[in-house]
């Protein structure tokens, strides 16, 4: 038990040291071009594989190709919410300002993924169901997730004091992440009750390797896109929050 506590204490010390905004700003600046390059390469190859290399589906023709954007977005929307809650919790419990900033920077990205998943889902729905919107379990739970993101950002934006904003939105993020699985399964259950045997977006009993490969590449592309954008956003946030610090002033003067 003592070792456990000591380990945690050491981890927190480490986080405080490397999580100092100034240090993080310098380190992340070195990583950023690499992340951006990897993102571009993955997107180009993923899109090539998805749009040209993969054969058309025997039922849906070319319409299924929107999956290569829809599915990674849906995955990222949920992953980003878990990341958001994890960052927020770390910031709230251990008082790490960098974690607060990471959470704040994640929210709009996650909301965008959710929105993209909703829009592409609805676009995909048109050829499949003949209508833009169906209360499909996946889409519905994605919609509720979008509301959770909107609430988080609204709360964050309406509190002026950055520390209180971070802590208050951390609590709502933690409450949200506990609720996400409950909401998810409730919606699934509700859906099966009302629309038995309807077609869902995932009704692909076996997915061919030729489709799986582009899907995986695109998923990594979106993941690196998230990491790149997260770094860009958090670096901006650091500059805004530390605008009175000397190193930021030196940086701005050097650039000017």
């Amino acid at each position: 038990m003592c070792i456990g506590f000591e380990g945690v204490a050491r981890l927190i010390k480490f986080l405080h040291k490397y999580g100092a905004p100034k240090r993080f700003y310098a380190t992340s600046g070195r990583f950023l071009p690499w992340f951006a390059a990897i993102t571009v390469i993955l997107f180009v190859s993923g899109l090539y594989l998805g749009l040209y290399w993969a054969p058309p589906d025997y039922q849906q023709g070319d319409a299924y190709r929107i999956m290569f954007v829809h599915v990674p977005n849906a995955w990222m929307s949920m992953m980003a919410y878990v990341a958001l809650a994890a960052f927020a919790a770390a910031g709230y419990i251990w008082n790490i300002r960098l974690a607060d900033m990471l959470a704040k920077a994640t929210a709009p990205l996650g909301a965008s993924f959710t929105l993209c998943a909703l829009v592409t889902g609805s676009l995909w729905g048109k050829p499949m169901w003949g209508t833009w919107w169906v209360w499909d379990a996946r889409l519905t739970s994605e919609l509720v997730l979008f509301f959770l993101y909107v609430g988080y950002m609204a709360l964050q934006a309406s509190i002026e004091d950055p520390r209180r904003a971070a802590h208050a939105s951390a609590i709502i993020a933690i409450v949200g992440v506990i609720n996400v699985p409950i909401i998810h399964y409730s919606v699934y259950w509700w859906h099966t009750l009302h629309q038995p045997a309807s077609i869902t977006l995932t009704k692909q009993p076996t997915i061919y390797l030729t489709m799986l490969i582009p899907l995986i590449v695109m998923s990594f592309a979106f993941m690196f896109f998230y990491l790149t954008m997260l770094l860009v956003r958090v670096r901006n946030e650091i500059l805004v929050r530390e605008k009175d610090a000397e190193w930021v002033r030196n940086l701005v003067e050097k650039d000017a």
Partner: protein
Amino acid sequence: MPEAMFSVRALSCARGDRVLFGGVSFELHAGEALHIRGPNGHGKTTLLRALCGLGRPLRGDIRWRGERVRDLGDEFYAVLAYLGHLNGLRDELTAAENVWTYARIHGGADCDGKTVRAALARVGLAAAAGRPARHMSQGQKRRLALACLLVVDRPLWLLDEPFTALDVASVGALVSLIEEHLHGGGVALIVSHQAFDLPGIRAFDLEHFVRVKR
């Protein structure tokens, strides 16, 4: 030199990302009081809220009888009484009901009608026990908030502008209540921009610790 009852070392507080003051240190022994002075906006209220645990200080060490108050947790609340710049009363409740609920919530389980009436009498509100707080003047409400402090026996008093809205006679009465509290071995921290006459009180000017560049 006996151990200090209440000691603060190198305390700094922030509002948002802006550091208000830093390096605040002092010690209070039984029977001592501190008058915290300073112009508006220097964080007097922030300091008091940090001391009683409502606010989170940036850095620093606050100890009660040698123990960190953060380690004491809720136990620390059992030794302090805080009078905020808000009275903490509800207009819909009568004077006696306000005092009674305060006592119960703060651990005065043995508080009965007699204790409540005695406390009200000491702040000169004996006749107003059944009157709703909404029908009271600002000064009377302030005295009612003070009566709440009297029903729970707490060694540490943290008072934020206690003299606001009080007339000359009431100021005198309050000063003698504080004196009585100090004689009983208690300590008190008083934030006030107003001068008052309490023998032996030390002044503490927050101005010297302000970190904000203006």
